[in-house]
């Protein structure tokens, strides 16, 4: 209170629309991240311009590479929607990574263990992924809804368990004889259809886009979406207004986990066609960051996820052609999030300090 000494300037009659302002904020954050990334690249003894151009070439150089970027973006979109679901309900699901692993394994298991007709097999496998993801968040969700147990910590810790557990299944139980750390391949009847000959880009992309758009419509058009959005904006108002807060917390987290599981299922059935140890490192986390960067907007997630997908795809080429490691992009992402977290806050502080979303930065 005492620090706030500057008088508020008289506001001009014209104000930037909110969406424009937030995109502008995002761009400034990107700019700072580029500078920060460049400094890091110089520190590790590389030429930033070379690294960035290689990154761009890797992401958009030709149609194959563009498809590669979209391929990388696919699980991030789905995982991002999973994180958005929790965020919009006023909750955190940092456990998307774990749900993704569980979902990936469940889909692969159905894929190699059972024989079913084409199409149906895929649907059953995806359903298994959804169920696995939902089950994986069930206990943290139950305790959050019922007893208020901090879901940030419980979902983060459950990631470690999920990754170890799927490794156990893969290596100690279902390991393909003679192979690497992977299970038997999934039957072709369970494959997600591929879109092009030259890329593993698959139908999963459309699943992701449909989820994002569907969730957006749910939030803005439906009664339950209104309930959920209100919980995320002001939990006490939601409770006072008669929304079934506890039940909704459980349902929201379960849905978030289920979609997280779906992300894993899509990744195994669309790309790897088997479950491999460490098959999708960081996609779940990228989804969470993409959702935060998009400020919880599912439409925004499409773009932030595409951006992160392109970064990932580009980083593969970058690592081959330069001495910079591909984790440079992780640093890059972290800087963007930091900048955005500070910025949106500056805007909000000017408006009002009331009724902030718990997660909103």
């Amino acid at each position, binding site marked *: 209170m005492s620090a706030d000494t500057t008088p508020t300037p008289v506001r001009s009659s014209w104000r930037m629309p909110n969406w424009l302002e937030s995109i502008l904020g995002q761009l400034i954050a990107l700019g700072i991240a580029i500078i920060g990334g460049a400094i890091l690249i110089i520190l590790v003894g590389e030429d930033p311009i070379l690294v960035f151009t290689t990154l761009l070439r890797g992401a958009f150089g030709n149609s194959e590479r563009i498809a590669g970027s979209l391929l990388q973006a696919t699980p991030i979109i789905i995982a991002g929607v999973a994180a958005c679901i929790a965020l919009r309900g006023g909750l955190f699901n940092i456990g998307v990574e774990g749900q993704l692993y569980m979902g990936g394994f469940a889909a692969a298991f159905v894929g190699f263990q059972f024989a079913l007709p084409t199409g149906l097999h895929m649907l059953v496998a995806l359903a298994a992924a959804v169920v696995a993801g939902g089950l994986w968040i069930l206990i943290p969700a139950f305790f959050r809804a019922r007893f208020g147990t901090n879901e940030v910590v419980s979902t983060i810790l459950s990631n470690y368990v999920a990754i170890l557990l799927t490794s156990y299944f893969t290596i100690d139980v279902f390991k393909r004889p003679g192979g690497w750390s992977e299970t038997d391949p999934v039957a072709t009847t369970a494959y997600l259809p591929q879109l092009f000959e030259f890329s593993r880009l698959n139908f999963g992309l459309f699943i992701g886009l449909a989820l994002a758009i569907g969730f957006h419509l749910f939030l803005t058009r439906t009664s339950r979406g209104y309930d959920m959005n209100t919980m995320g904006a002001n939990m006490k108002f939601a409770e006072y207004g008669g929304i079934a807060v506890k039940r909704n917390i459980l349902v929201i987290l379960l849905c978030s986990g289920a979609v997280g599981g779906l992300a894993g299922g899509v990744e195994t059935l669309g790309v790897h066609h088997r479950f491999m140890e460490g098959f999708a490192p960081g996609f779940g986390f990228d989804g969470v960051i993409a959702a935060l960067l998009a400020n919880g907007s599912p439409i925004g997630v499409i773009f932030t996820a595409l951006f992160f997908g392109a970064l990932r795809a580009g980083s593969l080429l970058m690592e081959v052609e330069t001495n910079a490691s591909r984790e440079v992009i992780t640093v890059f992402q*972290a800087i963007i999030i930091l900048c955005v977290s500070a910025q949106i806050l500056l805007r909000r502080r000017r408006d009002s300090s009331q009724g902030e979303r718990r997660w909103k930065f």
Partner: protein
Amino acid sequence: MEVLETIFNVSLIAAMLRTTTPILLVALGGTFTTKAGIFNIGLEGQMLLGAFFAVLGSLWTQSAWGGVAIGVLAAMCVALTFSFFVVTLRANEVVVGLALNILAGGLTITLTKAIFGTRGSIVSGDIVGLPRLHIPVIEDLGSLGKALGSFTPLIYLAFILVFVVWVIIYRTKLGLYIRVAGEKPAAAEALGIPTGLMQHIASLLCGVLAGLAGAHLSLGYITMFAENMSSGRGFMAVAVLIFSAGDPVKVLFGCLLFGFADALSLRLQTFGLSSYLVLTVPYLVTLGALFLLTYRQRPKIFRETAESLQLIRREKA
């Protein structure tokens, strides 16, 4: 019975104290931020960066303590960034904490590759690890004494720090101000105690201890750095902090529990159980404790009993 004896023996206790140390150090660091009213999910990243720079420092200075100092400094930098965003800019603490964890993960791998040209880990005979102390008085106390009398200094320090942190928090002005900043900032502001500064200081102190925790990981028993070697201990510390409300003594007991789970899981591996399953034990124990304790602390719907009703009525009359 024999099996149990093989599992539960003196060396298990020694192993437990060893595995307790990093989580205890980082959790003690977290007591400062917890008491200052900051939910510090960024402990993991501070610890990881501390571990990395401790190795780097050890190589540069050719001294284990030089390494520890540089590790601590690195963790303090992260801590300061954290408090700058969270306190000064009032950004969301979960978001900033996560971002810094991601940053630490990416940065350590990038720098490892840039400096050593390897991916994932730094292994070198030139890394100077922390020496083992030999405390004659304790070592003379039979087999248990032998096990307990020859640890690296950071292990002793961690347990001494429980007391030190307790004194700082409950008996010094600084600790008092940190608690007030966390519990009732308005009270502090009204008396001109700068709450923001207190939170920055708390975060820096937290950084010091998280850095020590990291240094213990990479220079303590194994002298190497591996990608993500903090493996969730920072998050476990956060869990401990949640149900201990940042009280150093409760933190100690919580951490001993996880140290025990950690040591037990290492021991169980030698019995041919899948190492993957065994490694989940510490996480499961943490989660179990978190759920159990929040269940016990749940808001209760109070129903009056006949006696309590009578008591209240009498009080009123």
